[in-house]
């Protein structure tokens, strides 16, 4: 039975069926008999999330540009659809062909966040593929992973044949060419383990580090001129261009800012060309300028001027997902609200100057005030602010600082607009800090669930007006994230137990079940505190030391010590911090 027939028979039981049937505009259908390689690109979460992910769009079209390869999309089915698939023994299939992915050459997962790991096991199981790498003989597809979380592959090392570390544009084609020249999976994996950016647990040489792949000239890299345009609304349902990769700021908590170095910008000319073609080909009415910190992009004024000339007559709006408070201007505000007003989100991350210096955020209270003033004078009546809680050296005074900032912003709003102004909305989103590999905080202890709760209660007890809404993340979810992100190979067993107990969609409040995780750790004989809330010694061997992401441990240690002295490190554009990345790849500002 085809999936569409299955869904039709149970239409009343399935939410948003268009997630499971493919056929979207821009999706690529090929003749299966005319290709050599079938690649299942799996996003281990719902369609609505996965279809918002830019990396998948780039690689999907990059792979499908090859005549010899057919890349299809696969997402985690929601629980209603999963129940139906299991009842009818329908194996997990590619959305384009509806063929079972266990018959493909590759099953590749992108690892965007740690809380999707149980979904990976569940998807392999749904595909009818043995979970453990060693239980899959040559007749099964190569199971591989890439994406940011692959920089610590330990938790998944028992289940995955090959980890691809770093940028995909240059080495994916190399990998596929190698596959075609090999007689079978074993030979392929053995030879792939010789490629610098591939980690193959079975053939890994412990004396050699796996070096992250970095593309030198982003401007010359492939970028799709077409996206798959979903029918149903997804989280980010819009055209996107990647304006740059990497970030010069050096925030000490930020893994992306460390593992996507060096700083590589695309030219405004190329970006404009990509943007116009994408809008024309997709019909989207919004284009997002994506990067870790878009307001830092040097060519922003030129790009947005030219882009608006195209966008305004077409009613296409421009959005920038990551703006900083220290360089937000009236000009930027005007440009992002030229066609449609969009929400404004800023991330001061911490409530006091001292703590912001510890994390090297390098923004001041004056920056925050200035940015909000521009926003309010420009007509905004809502702002969203991101903060973290549980940062190293944090005290209650730092938490109180968050509420002080919000109260201050409220005063500012009514001073500018008068007491009778439209009701102001300040949404504060408070995430629990999770120390991540390859950051200066990779040795730190994460706060416990109890401490997170106490901090939240304290924060909520501070007087703040009804205009200020504070949303705190669940400290228990963050704890699991913490264990996974700094996992070693032993965690793989706990992951299996958790999946066995029914854990999946752990990033979703309605599915997350902490008690099951506690039981899973017990069964796997794991002390979760050892992973999440333990300070490592600086000479401890770390599970992710097998990977070289390009920056040196000495740099991270230097940054760590500066953090505890609350001393900041300047932006790479002002002074090189000596992270060591320029040994491998020189970005736009590396000496």
């Amino acid at each position, binding site marked *: 039975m085809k999936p569409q027939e299955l869904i039709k028979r149970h*239409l009343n039981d399935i939410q948003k069926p268009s997630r499971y049937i493919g*056929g979207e*505009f821009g999706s690529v259908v090929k003749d299966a008999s005319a290709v050599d390689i079938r690649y299942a690109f799996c996003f281990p979460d719902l369609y609505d999330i996965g279809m918002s992910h830019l990396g998948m769009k780039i690689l999907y079209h990059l792979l499908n540009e090859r005549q010899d390869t057919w890349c299809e999309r696969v997402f985690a089915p929601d629980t209603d659809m999963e129940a139906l698939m299991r009842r009818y023994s329908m194996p997990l299939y590619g959305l384009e062909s509806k063929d079972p992915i266990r018959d493909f050459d590759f099953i590749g997962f992108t690892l965007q966040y740690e809380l999707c790991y149980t979904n990976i096991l569940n998807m392999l199981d749904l595909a009818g593929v043995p979970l453990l790498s060693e239980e899959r003989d040559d007749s099964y597809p190569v199971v591989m992973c890439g994406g940011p979380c692959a920089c610590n592959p330990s938790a998944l090392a028992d289940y995955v044949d090959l980890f691809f570390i770093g940028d995909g544009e240059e080495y994916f084609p190399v990998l596929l060419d190698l596959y075609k020249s090999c007689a079978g999976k074993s030979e392929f994996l053995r030879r792939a383990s010789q490629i610098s950016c591939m980690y193959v647990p079975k053939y890994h040489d412990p004396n050699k580090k796996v070096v992250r792949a970095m593309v030198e000239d982003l401007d010359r890299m492939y970028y799709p001129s077409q996206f798959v345009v979903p029918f149903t609304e997804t989280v980010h349902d819009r055209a996107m261009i990647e304006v740059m990769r990497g970030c010069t700021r050096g925030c000490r908590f930020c893994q992306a800012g460390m593992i996507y170095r060096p700083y590589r910008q695309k030219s405004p000319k190329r970006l404009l060309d990509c943007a116009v073609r994408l809008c024309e080909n997709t019909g989207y009415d919004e284009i997002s300028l994506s990067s870790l910190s878009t307001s830092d992009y040097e060519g922003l004024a030129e790009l947005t001027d030219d882009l608006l000339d195209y966008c305004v007559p077409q009613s296409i709006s421009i959005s920038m997902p990551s703006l900083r408070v220290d360089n937000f201007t009236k000009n930027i505000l005007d440009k992002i609200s030229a066609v449609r007003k969009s929400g404004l989100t800023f991330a001061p991350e911490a409530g006091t100057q001292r703590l912001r210096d510890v994390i090297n955020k390098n923004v001041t209270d004056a920056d925050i005030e200035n940015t909000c003033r521009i926003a309010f004078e420009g007509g905004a009546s809502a702002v969203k602010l991101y903060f973290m809680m549980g940062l190293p050296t944090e005290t209650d005074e730092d938490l109180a600082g968050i509420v002080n900032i919000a109260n201050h912003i409220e005063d500012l709003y009514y001073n500018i607009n008068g007491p009778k102004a439209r009701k102001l909305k300040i949404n504060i989103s408070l995430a629990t800090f999770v120390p991540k590999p390859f950051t200066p905080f990779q040795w730190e202890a994460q706060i416990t669930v109890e401490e997170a709760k106490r901090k939240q209660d304290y924060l909520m007890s501070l007087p703040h007006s009804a205009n200020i809404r504070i949303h705190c993340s669940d400290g228990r979810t963050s704890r699991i994230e913490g264990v996974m992100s700094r996992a070693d190979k032993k965690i793989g067993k706990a992951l299996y137990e958790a999946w066995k107990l029914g854990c999946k969609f752990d990033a979703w409040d309605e599915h997350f079940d902490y008690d099951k995780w506690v039981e899973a750790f017990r069964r796997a004989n794991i002390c979760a505190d050892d992973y999440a809330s333990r300070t490592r010694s600086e000479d401890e061997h770390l599970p992710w030391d097998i990977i070289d992401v390009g920056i040196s441990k000495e740099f991270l240690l230097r940054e760590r010590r500066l953090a505890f002295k609350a001393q900041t490190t300047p932006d790479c554009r002002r002074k090189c911090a000596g992270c060591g990345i320029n040994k491998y790849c020189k970005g736009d500002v590396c000496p």
Partner: protein
Amino acid sequence: MPVRIRFSKTDTACFISHLDLVRCMTRAFQRAGISVRRSQGYNPRPHIVFAAPLSLGIESTAELMDVIVEQDLSPAEIMQRLNGGLPRDIRVSDVYEDGMPFRQISKARYNLKFPEQYARLFDSFVNADRIMTVKKNKHGPIQTDIKPYVNIERFDIGPAGADISLILPTGPDYNISMRVFLGAFFDSFENDEQIFYACRTDFFDKNGKLFR
């Protein structure tokens, strides 16, 4: 130039809800480079009027929508361009300028197919004294006998199952959606899956004249 566009929505496209279809069409015009008159208001969008929403799971070869095209394009050119901007399972089959007003739509014809095991059950379902459906409104569920409104034009039973042509009231005055009708049928006997094929093929006006 006001134009009426006839399109089909078949195979996987039957799972695209009406709201998603509106979005899909909006983007299709944009992709096709066809400039369509926009709605007035805070967030102007292309103004597209659909003849009658189609229920989820039902295919169609007869869908109609109206737009005002702001360029000088021939109907043939609109059809060709729009098809280039549409997903595979939504196809434009006709574009013309002299459509009848949508408010005159009164009935729709459907082709319905069931596997053999449902054929007798369907026969007795439509030949019973009453066909009860349940519609919910703000006062709670309302039971209605729709038997007087259901017109079975043709009912063939063969080895492949039942092949039926039937007409249901459709449009602004009185509307029975195919999902409601099928729901009543599948509620009338024990089953745990609903196997059917349903496709809207034509609209008619009050006088039984083919609506175009």
